[in-house]
């Protein structure tokens, strides 16, 4: 058995596939590629595939990770090639390498970089200054729903970077870098907080979210 760590992309064509559906996509691709995947022991065996943090449905990525344990002696490069032949159009493994069997993907993931494009409702002046003011605060609170009801959460510690990288007449593009881990917000949470702060200038219904990269330790 060996563990292969794979970096994969999901483009516009498949951006609405949910995280759960993606697991099935890979399971069936493995069967088409005739690659033997390892199964967990126990009463209800399941294939040993683990994903990094879930992407919001509707977002694209060019840097998500997943680990697959295989029961055969296949080189990462051969694995990558075989899989790419059978994956649905829009999903591609761009990098594959072997890691130790005790190397858990979840403990390696530190952060992620995003590009978020959002439509503007009214013309916005001086956005860069406003963002600086916004980011200077020690506390950025958002409302989160949990089992025990709604509560306010401070997301500021997770925000590593937020800047505008492109301004068009009707939309803005942001670069966002976040820490990932327990309780981490997604980029939409952050943008919503910014939007509330600057007085509702963005149309939060029309956005495009792209994960540029996941940062591993």
């Amino acid at each position, binding site marked *: 058995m060996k563990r292969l760590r794979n970096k994969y992309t999901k483009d516009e064509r498949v951006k609405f*596939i949910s995280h759960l559906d993606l697991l099935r996509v890979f399971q069936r*691709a493995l*069967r088409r590629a005739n690659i033997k995947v390892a199964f967990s022991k126990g009463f209800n065996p399941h294939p040993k595939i683990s994903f990094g943090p879930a992407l919001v449905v509707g977002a694209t990525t060019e840097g998500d990770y997943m680990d697959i344990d295989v029961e055969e002696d296949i080189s990462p490069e051969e694995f990558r090639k075989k899989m790419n032949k059978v994956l*649905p159009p829009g999903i591609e493994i761009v990098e594959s390498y072997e890691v130790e069997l005790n190397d858990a993907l979840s403990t390696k993931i530190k952060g992620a970089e995003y590009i978020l494009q959002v*439509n503007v409702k009214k013309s916005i002046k001086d956005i860069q200054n406003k963002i600086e003011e916004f980011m200077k605060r020690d506390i950025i609170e958002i409302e989160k729903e949990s089992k025990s009801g709604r509560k306010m959460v401070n997301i500021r510690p997770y925000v590593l970077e937020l800047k505008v990288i492109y301004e068009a007449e009707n939309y803005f593009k942001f670069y966002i870098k976040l820490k990932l881990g327990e309780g981490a917000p997604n980029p939409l949470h952050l943008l919503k907080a910014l939007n509330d702060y600057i007085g509702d200038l963005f149309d939060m219904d*029309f956005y495009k979210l792209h994960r540029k990269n996941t940062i591993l330790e």
Partner: protein
Amino acid sequence: MNNLKDKIDALLMKVSKPTRYTGGELNSSIKNPEEVKVRFAFAFPDVYEVGMSHLGLRILYHLLNKREDVYCERVFAPWLDMEKLMRENDIPLFSLETKTTLDKFDFIGFTLQYELSYTNVINMLNLAGIPILSRDRKGLPFVIAGGPCAYNPAPLSDVIDFFVMGEGEEVINEIIDAYIDWKKRGGEREEFLQIVSQIKGVYVPKYYMEVYNQDGTIKEIRPIKKGVPEKVKKRIVKDFGNAYHPEEQIVPFMDIVHDRIMLEIFRGCTRGCRFCQAGMIYRPVREKSKEKILDLADKLIKSTGYEEISLTSLSTCDYSQIEDLVKKLIDKYKDKGVGVSIPSTRVDAVSINLLKEIQKVRKTGLTLAPEAGTQRLRDVINKGITEEDILEATKEAFSAGWTNVKLYFMIGLPTEMMEDVEGIVDLAYKIVDNYKEVKGSVKNLKITISTSTFVPKPFTPFQWTAQDSIKDIVEKQDLLKKKLKSKVLKYNWHNPYMSFLEAVISRGDRKVGKAIIKAWEKGCKFDGWEEYLNYDKWEEAFKEVGVNPHFYANRERSLEEVFPWDVIDVGVDKRYLIREYKKSQEGRITPDCRLYCTGCGVKDFDEGVVCFEASKK
């Protein structure tokens, strides 16, 4: 955001299950629409996960896309959240593959699987901005329909430009060839309808009219166009063994109702159950060879990666080499984790053995369909099984380790009395006793009893019979609810209003069609989804167009009555249906026609038709 695709994307951010609308699944067809001569939209009038589970769609989709000059795309009824957003944002109904609005297609082909999806047909046309009445359409596209419910074309006659009767594999190509030819010549819309009216299996409703008697029954269905056939004969694929079966299958991203490979191993059924429309209209029985099936299975597993393969047919255990076939499939694919499933189980030892074999790979439930609670009534409907069969099969299953059994029955069957309904209860408790005998207690036992309500269907020996009134059905259901109360029993029943509407529409004439349109105008859609059925609106619709629904559902017909579907010839002789109807009233059974020919007439229907029984000689 000016192009349609961006607009759709923005909506998809807000709807449930967005992959219902995205297309792009593995093995879906990607073509350049500019490079084809014919664009065909295969339309399924229900939501994606239901439509994608339908074998006919899968066959015709790949069959059409094999042609370089045709691009077949798919479209389903958008779920209510999506429809609302589409209407609010002026987005017309579009195809999954290229996000093209339906008005840009040459054909929109609906498959009619269920009468309660007819309002969805109308709703989809309306969402596409296409006039819902055939006579209001100018130019393209042509709105066509096929599938089992099309055999009574009357109710949708004002909506559909033409119907295609029977198996579509051959006739669809003939229609498309004729279309290409007509388009090249730059013909008129009307001219094309005339051309197809000459293709065998095609029914153009505007070329016929229903003439009524004073009492509202039909006097005749009169052809009003010179040269159209008096009766439209259904199409049969003669060489079914070598007929097209896809070697690939679309693999949806989301979980659909039947999320597995569907391999059709034979068509038709020899059992002759008198309530079953499929058993009559899909005649004759034709099998694929075992070698062919094994070859297809291999290709389908490789091209889809599915973990389960379903051997489909109307009665899979009746396949002549079923045991060997299942064993071979299990042996070959169990190491890959691919399981086999059979959609229905016969009530006998062979079937239980098959299930044991299947269990080697994947746990499977035990589902039996006694259909009626007493032997008398099972004989009436010609369900050729006995109580001993049922008890033996369940005993065998319990010994083999099953603890869950599902039993399917119908209520409201012709001649049914309360004691027949009580028979369902008796049988359920006998099965419980059976379990106790095998296991010593009722520990872990779970028996699920489901009753559907009998709907008399065209082209069956019961096409003359009356459906039970809603009141009677409710009474029978109440009895079962009361008597099937036990820790180990669970009772499920069908909404009687749905079964009533199904009965009205399935034997409806063109007048019923007006009520369907009226009901849609009042907001009815997804009538087959219990939570969305609005029966009060239907009642209003019937009233407003002056149609008495009970005339269609609850009236016994005389043998001489002309039916709206008598303009169609399905190959099963009316004299055979009458014979079977009479035998049912006497409680006499007719054996399986694999034993000997029971003379339904399909053998002599058409040149080259060979049914299973005949091929043995």
